[in-house]
């Protein structure tokens, strides 16, 4: 069974630029999560999808972050414009019965 795929693995941008991350969950997993993990901290949930509907986006900075999962499979997370404090690893996870499986993450550096 293929795992959660994410791309790109690394991204360096300047502040005020925009960036997008892509996630392909494990086949059949209805629930998809985007997390932000700052170095030395645990993952922080940004948004949770159930199929293509949003379940929880209470911690998503909606003035600059957006996410979509149009067909209930792949998802994209966008930041526009980026700030220095957005430097982090962005993790995607998916689940079917509650156990979450994580992708390798995208390391974003904002300079």
């Amino acid at each position, binding site marked *: 069974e293929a795992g959660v795929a994410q791309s790109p693995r690394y991204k360096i941008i300047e502040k005020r630029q925009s960036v997008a991350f892509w996630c392909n969950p494990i086949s059949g997993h209805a629930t998809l999560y985007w997390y932000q993990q700052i170095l030395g901290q*645990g993952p922080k949930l940004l948004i*949770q999808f159930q199929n293509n509907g949003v379940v929880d986006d209470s911690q998503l900075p909606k003035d600059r972050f957006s996410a979509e999962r149009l067909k209930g499979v792949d998802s994209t997370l966008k930041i526009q414009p980026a700030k220095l404090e957005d430097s982090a690893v962005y993790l995607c996870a998916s689940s079917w019965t*509650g*156990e979450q499986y994580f992708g390798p993450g995208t390391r974003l550096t904002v300079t």
Partner: protein
Amino acid sequence: QQQVKQSPQSLIVQKGGISIINCAYENTAFDYFPWYQQFPGKGPALLIAIRPDVSEKKEGRFTISFNKSAKQFSLHIMDSQPGDSATYFCAASLGGNNRKLIWGLGTSLAVNP
């Protein structure tokens, strides 16, 4: 009430020793307690999980001990190996398939050869 407090922040253990990481929670409605292992450059991977109807769960060298009355749970790694060196996160969540995990801050474990 949504917090999960994890300790210690870092841990150094000799090869063959026992590594113990502790977590405490406040919300008695939590009903699922997983532990995740994360290596540098990788996403967290589910290691072992427990529900509050049992006091202990063992999988190989990894054991979760759960104390419902004290609202605490711990991870024990027996016969610790250098390959166990990683960051370990405890978490807790409420019921249902749409689980929102509340994460501890993590413990960086180093196992010396």
